[in-house]
């Protein structure tokens, strides 16, 4: 039996990655390499706006979080210094992955233009969210000290573990995993448009 009939749109999604990659793995790499400088140039223009958006989103997210912490801790004001997390490497880690996602999504064969734009937009938002979540664990750990005083995270060791795991999960692992996972999502969404070659 010809296995081509197992990989069409009606056959489930298990083999869709193979449909796309078997078609043109090297050409995807070439397209990505050619797209990269253009994506970088476009991002150079968009980056300040995205940075401003990230800073604003982080501050907005921290607002209610601080109120909750204040409630848990029994009132008062909890100061959170967001500055270290909104500059340098944490911010850049989010930026570069948006560029990587854009280039990879552009390289998927048969993906429609609108689908590519939607996926890049979604990726930007998702990466922004993971950045904000990561920042919550990174910002001077002051909110964890507040939790500690409320006996939610009782010991310095537990505090350090929670802080490290949270930061690594959201600021390091999630952004690095994003290009692979989003590329896979686009491939799966686009597979129905790829006619297997005989």
């Amino acid at each position, binding site marked *: 039996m010809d296995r081509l009939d197992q990989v069409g749109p009606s056959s489930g999604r298990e083999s869709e990655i193979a449909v796309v990659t078997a078609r043109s793995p090297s050409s995807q*790499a070439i397209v990505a390499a050619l797209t990269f400088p253009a994506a970088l140039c476009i991002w150079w223009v968009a980056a300040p706006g995205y940075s401003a958006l990230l800073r604003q989103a982080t501050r907005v997210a921290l607002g209610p979080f601080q109120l909750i912490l204040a409630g848990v801790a029994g009132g008062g004001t909890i100061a959170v210094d967001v500055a270290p997390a909104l500059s340098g490497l944490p911010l850049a880690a989010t930026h570069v992955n948006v560029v*990587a996602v854009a280039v990879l999504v552009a390289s998927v064969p048969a993906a429609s233009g609108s689908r590519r734009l939607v996926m890049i937009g979604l990726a930007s938002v998702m990466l922004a969210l993971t950045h904000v979540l990561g920042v919550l664990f990174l910002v001077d750990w002051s909110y964890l000290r507040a939790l500690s005083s409320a006996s939610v995270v009782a010991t310095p060791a537990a505090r350090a573990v929670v802080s490290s795991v949270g930061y690594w999960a959201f600021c390091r692992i999630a952004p690095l995993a994003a290009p692979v996972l989003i590329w896979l999502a686009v491939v799966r969404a686009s597979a129905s448009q790829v006619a297997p070659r005989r």
Partner: protein
Amino acid sequence: MSRAPDAITANAASRPFSAGRFCLRFLALLAVAFAAPLIAPLRHAVIEPWNRALSVATAAMLRLLGFESHALAGSVIGPGIALEVIDACNGLDAIAVFGAALVALGGSVRRRMMSLLIGAVTLLLLNLVRLTGLSYVAIQHPTWLAQAHYYVGQSIMILASVLLWIVSIRWVLPAGVNPRSRS
């Protein structure tokens, strides 16, 4: 484009590719890979010597380019620069992404290991070129260093790791999920 001849002779009994299973494996492996450098003995035995070796190699590359430079305690010392090679610069992040995605893929273990070896060497060499390039920028155009470091260099490493994985997929996927194989 010609089809890889070994694609149809791979382990046909392997389970078909499942995106859900892949994502779980990938994230779990990535977490393990990122947690590993936190283990002190591993850090002292592998990571720190590796960072120092990279600084030595980068200094050597700079000398090849005609710049007076040397390595000192994990830093590259050159004309007007002292750049420390830290964990985020050592290329192991990119190898972790590539390796986790490759191992999570399923298929022939031998082919995955071979791909991992080839990919890891490629990424390490690329990282050495990146470090040399960043040092060059730091010496010649210091005001560009932040952009080159944060955006260009890191983007290239991440893209390279994912593209190597995409190219590897075709070779390591079992025949049972290769759309162009016949039974």
